[in-house]
């Protein structure tokens, strides 16, 4: 069955692990969501940068509101699952929560810089760095 990948502005590349998770038969899209872009308050230079990047990627750029557009697309293409790159952005997370009411959502993390425990002491950078340094200073397998 075809899977839907929603590529958002935090993950603009075609070898993001979201594609491996979604499998070979995918529809990949980006939403030019005016409401979202205005809330993010991006300047024109950034919008050009993002658009230029999208032009090089195997994604369809859709001019629509993200939630309604994605739900409609999923219905039209009979996709039950939507794969989304992980993001800390609260506005994108709000969209994800709305999508979860209607579709099966799979969040896919990007390749980490270093793998560390989630409860790490991060009060100051050097507490983090003392733990991260050894791993950070060597190449990963990826």
């Amino acid at each position, binding site marked *: 069955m075809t899977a839907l990948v929603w590529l958002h*502005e*935090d*993950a*603009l*590349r*075609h070898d*993001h692990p979201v594609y491996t998770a979604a499998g070979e038969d995918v529809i990949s899209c980006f939403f*030019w969501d*005016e409401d979202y*872009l*205005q809330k993010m*308050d*991006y*300047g*024109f*230079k*950034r*919008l*050009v*940068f*993002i*658009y*230029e*990047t*999208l*032009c*090089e*990627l195997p994604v*369809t*750029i*859709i*001019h*629509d509101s993200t939630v309604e*557009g994605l739900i*409609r*697309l999923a219905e039209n293409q009979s996709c039950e699952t939507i794969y989304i*790159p992980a993001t*800390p*952005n*609260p506005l994108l*997370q709000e969209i994800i929560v709305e999508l979860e009411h209607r579709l099966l959502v799979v969040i896919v993390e*990007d*390749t*980490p*810089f*270093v793998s560390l425990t989630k409860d*790490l002491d*991060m009060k100051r*950078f050097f507490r*983090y*760095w003392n733990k*991260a*340094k050894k791993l*950070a*200073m*060597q*190449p*990963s397998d*990826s």
Partner: protein
Amino acid sequence: MIELEKIFTNRKLLVKHVSEISPWLQDSNASSITGGISQAERQLQDIDPIEYCRTRNFLNGKVTKLSPYIRHGMLTLDRVRNEALSLCKDPQQIEKFIQELAWRDYWQRIYQRHPTHIWDDIESYKTGFQADEYEDELSADIATANTGVACIDQFIETLLRTGYMHNHTRMYVAAYIVHWRRIKWQAGAKWFLHHLIDGDPASNNFSWQWVASTFSNKPYIFNLDNVRKYAHAEINTNSSENAVLDASYEILTLNLFPNKGTEQ
């Protein structure tokens, strides 16, 4: 549901198209910094992490300018680190470079833990002032590069024209806004996020808090001698045109933070 165009014969047409689909923006000037995975790859091939460690603090030093590509996920920190390591014999030679990548990872991890607190002061100011003694809004002279402090105006002009700034000039401008003008870091951070192509809620806001002292042990300040040390010939560092910056750290600390000594 409208599918947007992806093929343009030249950049001018692409820029025009973006202007048409973002009618809420007044500005329609693109930056010379171009998007695209192929551009990200070219820039990654051009990094020199050893030279970086020697010159990164200088405004014309060999910094990578990878930030917009990293910010939007086109390059991972993992990929950049692996590439940098492949260019040196001993990882110690490029520790400073990897540590700078780690700063981004550190800020992202804090953001992931508390995504909705990204505009809150993490700690109180260590300047002798309370948060409510700072102005809420950025003044128009700052927004338009007309502060009258020559080097600060040049740094702001670069931001407005290119959408990019060197790390050192970000620190100078942020310190000028928060400590010389006594404006809340949030006002400056919001303005940076609008203009920077690499604008990132975590790297930007936490760096502003680091300068402000709400996420560090003391406020970051600089003086004109420091700008002279790291600037290049095009930056105006004349004393008379940068008078408010031209003093020793002791004098600046007394002038900018007069209550500091009396704090509990």
